[in-house]
């Protein structure tokens, strides 16, 4: 589903403080590594600053890279226009951002349903689906609240709910359990697994949470921008 070949990314390219954030990343059978496949349930892990978020952003057509190739179901991301990448993000990818990134103007219900609405789902279906995921993540009492009135953990669950509601092909979840207690993070991981199994949605986590580590099928270890184990 997603193949990565020799991808390098730099920050501050050409400046004194140039930073080689992703070093020759390969997730491709041709390069002797497994690619990310349909139904994948895996974890990117590694110490803080090793490049987990950067890699997820690059895979999710959110950020550019400096060399190499990424194939998203046969489309080479580097060759796509900004609008084509936007369409992929909207229709095929669900993001859970480390910084939540909720829309401040919209209440919880509208945030969760936002992507479905953009994709043109009928109102009734949106309402039902929002209720369903909100109940699983225990945020159904907060549907009318604005994000600014929620705790970190609550915002995180809304961010997850928004990513999963529209049932994308792949969910890229950056530290989705970071602010959750063990009960909530367990409920979240159960929901993720059931989406993975019943809807065949691929999920890639970036996390150093033990709960996540224990539940995934595959672990990709990063260190200082390099894959050291996959």
């Amino acid at each position, binding site marked *: 589903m997603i193949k990565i070949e020799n991808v390098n990314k730099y920050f501050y390219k050409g400046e004194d403080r140039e930073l080689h954030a992703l070093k020759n990343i390969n997730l491709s059978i041709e390069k002797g590594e497994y690619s990310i496949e349909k139904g994948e349930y895996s974890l990117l892990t590694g110490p803080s600053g090793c490049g987990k978020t950067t890699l997820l952003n690059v895979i999710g057509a959110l950020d550019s890279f400096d060399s190499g190739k990424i194939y998203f179901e046969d489309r080479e991301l580097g060759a796509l226009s900004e*609008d084509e990448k936007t369409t992929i993000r909207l229709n095929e990818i669900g993001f859970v951002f480390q910084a939540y990134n909720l829309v401040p*103007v919209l209440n919880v219900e509208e945030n969760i349903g936002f992507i479905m609405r953009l994709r043109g789902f009928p109102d009734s279906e949106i309402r039902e689906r929002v209720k369903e995921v909100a109940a699983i993540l225990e945020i159904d009492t907060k549907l009318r609240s604005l994000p600014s009135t929620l705790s970190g953990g609550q915002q995180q669950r809304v961010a997850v709910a928004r990513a999963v509601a529209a049932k994308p092909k792949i969910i890229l979840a950056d530290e989705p359990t970071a602010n959750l207690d063990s009960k909530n993070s367990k409920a979240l991981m159960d929901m993720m697994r059931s989406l993975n199994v019943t809807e065949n949605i691929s999920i890639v986590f970036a996390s150093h949470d033990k709960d996540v580590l224990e539940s995934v099928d595959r672990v990709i270890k990063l260190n200082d921008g390099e894959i050291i184990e996959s």
Partner: protein
Amino acid sequence: MFSFALKNIFFYKSRSITTFILTFVSTLFFIVYVAMMDGSHNSMLKNALKVYTGAIEIYKTGYRDIGGNEYFIENVDEIESKLSQIDGIKHFTSRYETYGILSTDRYSSAAMVTGINPLKEENMSQLKATLIEGEFLSETSKNCLYAGADLIKKIHLKVGDEVSFIGSASDNSFAADLFTLCGVFRTGSFEFDSSASFVSRSYFDELMYAQNKASYITIDVDDLEDVDSVRLSIKKQLSSELEVLTWKTLMKSMVEMMQVDSIFGYISMSLFFVVIFFVIMIFGFINVSSRVKEFGILRCIGLSRANVRALLLYEIFILSSLAIVLATPIGAAIAYYFSIHPIVIEGMSETYKEYGIVSDSVPLDFNIFTISWNVALIYSLNFLSVIYPISYINAFKPIEATRHV
């Protein structure tokens, strides 16, 4: 996207309120200002036309350029009977204009002496209304002279005094008579008041052999807006040796003055709009730059640049529509009210007297067409004001925008 735009409008209240108020005030101001400018021009024109010049005048070709006895209209009765058949004409009258010398025992002055039909002239011009002393002419007033206040001052003439006239009759013979000053007028136009004088036609025609002749025929129309079409229908009826001219040609200097005035009006207006435009744009820009992160998030989760553009256009559309929809009827109502109850500006007739302004009151011009283009202009300015913010926001890469603080 529309309902999302509405939510943004409610969420970012201060920006919404400023934009709303600015648009509201500028729409209101603009409508009233333009109505005032057009209105003052219209009333200047109407006053000027009322004083002496007709909305349309008929001349024999050559009279205006060359003049002289060969260029009089010779079949006045026939033309007048044709004119009475044409739609859109309110009043008309002929005038027989000649130049001569008016002398008292010690002073004399060249003067324009015009034979007029006193009854018809009452409808056509302000001659009677500008009377300041004595009385206006009548059909039977014989050798009565009705003269401008500045003219009689030159030759030290008083009402009741006699004055001799020497001129040439229409057959080029010598014409002379003794007039009595019966009335004095003052229109406010020095040029006119110092040279013009009038005598009743029935009397003057005999003196000048001018029966059925005229220098020109002056015409008042029902609606000034239709002046060009009325002119055409008159022209069709008349022989080609007659020229039919509208006030636009007859009063070139006044028309030019009004154009200059309009241009200055529009220049000061556009300065005002430049300011409003930038204020709206700056508020829009401040708002958008405080939302960079939010737009980044939206773009990350799948909003396209076209969506962002639509969103911002919807926002300005809703805000400006609301302001315009509220301000337009109020502005129109003000224009309408003051078109019926004119504003009085002290001293206006003094300032513009050389253009024949005789009244201090300025009715506003109430014109739906004008109001429509006013509104269209404000709309366009509002839309233009979001172009820069849109390109600013769309220049961000989505992921970078989410890191923006």
